[in-house]
């Protein structure tokens, strides 16, 4: 599907900021719980479709910004995002060759890994959230993947 494309830093930063604001934009009740982790989806998309050696640094920076936005333990999202960005970069050639449904399944697994790392860090640092509903954002995020991936592919320049 996606041809190899390159995004310049201005666009990457703009995408990240939009994803960050979408993460804290006020939503009513249930939608708030189902809100996908837009920053993780953006990082994954960049690692898969617009790979560059600085991808991990971008993931880390976006994670720190997300920590600051949400006021949680500093470095928490950064760590989780770096790990999933690494896996995505490593397996990117296989993942990109997958049909859309299978690709969504991989994204589901990676988002789950992201959420699991956050859950684990929450627990280790003494702020556990044991509410089962926190896991609902993972399938919701995976369900958004085809949409977000399509949208980003549209704004990315083709070569």
């Amino acid at each position, binding site marked *: 599907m996606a041809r190899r494309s390159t995004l310049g830093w201005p666009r990457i930063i703009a995408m990240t900021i939009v994803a960050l604001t979408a993460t804290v*934009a006020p*939503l009513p009740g249930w939608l708030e719980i189902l809100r996908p982790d837009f920053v993780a989806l953006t990082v994954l998309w960049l690692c898969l479709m617009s790979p560059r*050696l600085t991808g*991990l640094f971008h993931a880390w920076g976006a994670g720190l910004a997300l920590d600051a936005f949400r006021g949680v333990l*500093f470095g928490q999202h950064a760590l989780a995002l*770096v790990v999933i960005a*690494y896996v995505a970069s490593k397996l990117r050639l296989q993942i990109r060759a997958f049909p859309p449904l299978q690709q969504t399944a991989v994204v589901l697994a990676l988002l789950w890994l992201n959420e699991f790392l956050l859950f684990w860090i929450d627990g280790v640092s003494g702020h556990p959230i044991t509410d089962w509903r926190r896991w609902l954002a993972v399938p919701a995020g995976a369900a958004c993947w085809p949409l977000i991936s399509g949208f980003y592919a549209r704004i990315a320049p083709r070569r």
Partner: protein
Amino acid sequence: MTNHEPDSRPLLLGGPALGLRLIVLVILSIGLMVADQRRHHLAMIRDWFSAAAYPFQWAVQAPLTAWDTARESLATRSRIDADNIRLASDNLVLRLKLMRFESLAQENQRLRAARESSARVVQRSLVAEIVRVDLDPFRQRVLVNKGSRDGVFRGQAVLDANGIFGQVTRVGPVSAEVILISDPEHAIPVQVNRTGGRTIALGTGRSGQLSLPYLPQNADVVAGDLLVSSGLGGVFPPGYPVGQVTTVERDPSQPLLTVTAEPLAGLDSDPEVLLVWFDNTVVEPESAPEPAASGAPAPADATGGD
């Protein structure tokens, strides 16, 4: 947009470069988390980051605020008139109450001075607006638009018109994060107003519920009891309403009661809150000078409640 920047994109992404980056960044993240967990080490960087994030957080809510303003300005005249009449009558009632309050406050101060106990009443307050962003759906925290520039400090009590709202957990230059009394990590020392019995009210993670898990089976508490802050711990001023007991379950096989309460402050509906300063040192009124009243010089900046 075309960009011809020298792209470092290699054909084969991976290998040692990627792995090394992962290791370095993971170690850095862990270092940051440890430093942040032990507080204060990262205060500067954190402040800087939260200051940078604030304009965006503010921008997120701007459309909503604009919508509210637009709706307000289109409000019908009759509704504004009705509001005006209601507010005028509210004002009258409050002024009546205030007249009595002044004399009661003085009497209270005299009596407390006579007993050499401190009268911790709110001395100064600052109205802060809640920035409408969702920080985390599972934690009860909000962002307000006042920060260290306005003198806000960590551990400061936050009230609204109906009762205690929460306390400040993090302060940026122009914004602060407030943890609500209903956050699962928050605990507030309270007193049953009817009997004076003290206990602790914990947040449950739901904005309409507090739990009081430390009351023994023989505790005198019934549904409808008013809970007020006891002032122990020094974070909250004593005597301000916190919640109302909703259910009391007595299970004889358990050592403790299962009591839930409903917070009185409008935790999820308030557009504005009050940040308060109160003095928790001994009051020495002019009428009864007590030179020996240095019994309990409680530090004014005592924070606790973590």
